[in-house]
């Protein structure tokens, strides 16, 4: 199978930060789309996990 290389998309991204320049900074918590996921989370049945029973696998 000829697989397109995911690396090509990565080349468009910002360069990897220099590890020496890393250091504590103010968290950047801006994440577009996460408000939408909040709406989806609110629709989850709070008891969903209590009804979820599986048999042991490997």
């Amino acid at each position, binding site marked *: 199978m000829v697989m397109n290389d995911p690396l090509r*998309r990565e080349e468009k991204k910002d360069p*990897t930060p220099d590890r020496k320049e890393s250091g504590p*900074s103010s968290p950047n918590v801006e994440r*577009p789309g996460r408000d939408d*996921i909040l709406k989806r989370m609110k629709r989850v049945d709070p008891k969903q996990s209590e009804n979820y029973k599986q048999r042991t696998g490997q």
Partner: protein
Amino acid sequence: MSLRVPLLGIETEYGIIRDDVDNYDVVEESIRLVRCCEMKSEFGNWAYSRERSHQDMRGFNVPSLAQDEEEDAFCVEDRKRPYSYWEMKSDRVLENGARFYNDHTHPEYSTPECSSIFQLVAHDLAGERIVFECARLRNLEDKPGRICIFKNNTDYIGHSYGTHDNYLISRRLPFEHWVERLVPFLVTRQLYAGAGKVGSELQGDNCFSGLQLAQRSDFIETVLSIETMTQRPIINTRDEPHATQDKYRRLHLILGDANMSPYATALKVGTTQLILTLIDEDKLKLLVDLENPVKDIKDISRDQTGTIALKRTNGKTITSLELQEFYLDAVDKNLSGQCKEWDWVIREWARTLDELKHHPEKLADRIDWAIKKDIFTRFIDSEGVSWDDPWLKSLDLEYHNLDPERGLYRGLEQTGGIYSMFSESEVQLAIKKPPEDTRALIRGLAVTYGMDKIKNIHWTGIEFKDGNFIDLSQVVTSTDVEHLINSKKEQFSWL
């Protein structure tokens, strides 16, 4: 293709429920789901006679594999079902070379053998699509409720099911040589490979409230074991290479999580392949022995900072982050610049450890546990609930739901803001086509063009009704694949 670790594969057991129905038979549902598959496939002819699951790497055979008492009781009931063993398994070998079947009580998708990390991740994603498509088809039937599929590893009340990553490695080195160098790496890779879990199934001192890094760490009970359903180990000792026995081992790792993030899957299998390469080349000189890795794997899972002190056998301590940095440094020094894919792994591994140390919030676009931390924290702030609220476990479960209309990870994929590695067309290609440079190509071609002629089929070979047999046990490299096709194409017109 890596010469040291030429083949890779992932087996995933999926969780399955019929939603909004109180009494349903999960075994029946798993069987029916696999039977819904409409892909071209060889059905019901898996060659179980070629399996060797009772041989142990440590040089002995076990008479049987164990399971707990509850599962013993379930199996007694299973034997009363109106199905033979083969009918229950409902094995399919698909046109892309993968295996898809009912493993006990879970739909399991085993990727075809892959030669590279990105190829493997694409096939893991193909598995998600194939299993969900079966659920969609099953839901078209006139039945109460709705089948839901979860790519996770726990039901939060003590039952776990696995996601196993597999690596073909050389038999040249003693098994102990691999073990002592691998264990510290494996127990700490959850820093980026953990899928995240709300709460804990363990009691007493190990009870935990909040978000763990990994789903599976609670279930690891020993360093080495051939078992997979009880006494689960850091390294499984099943000696079943699915290749020439005297040349190869298959490292069968059962401690890992089912990642929704393809980036996390790529980092998990990529870093592991690099460490195995380093060990095979005998370039991992300095050993870091942990005093109690089974305890450590649970402690690490409960520490989101990577700074918990782990006891070493020499009396000193080391943190999980330091351990990963030790392995990264050795890989960086010895394996950089050899191929683009490995360089991607090294670069992203460094970036991830660096961000974990300095900007952990930045991991929330690609590391599953960190994504959960971000979105669940927003939910807690919004709704005024605590990490102990059962709602959080329900959110945790729904993160892994494969349904695009319900799953939380699926929702994040739709809204953006998470790291995407493949286009949908690339995943669709992996659904239809096997890797072209591994023996999966032969298997896929046989299923596609020679299906009515197959008597039985396995990772290691294909037996035909006319008595002919294609031995795949020695077909490891792309050159082997090419040689086999050239030598057999007159005999098998479909090659």
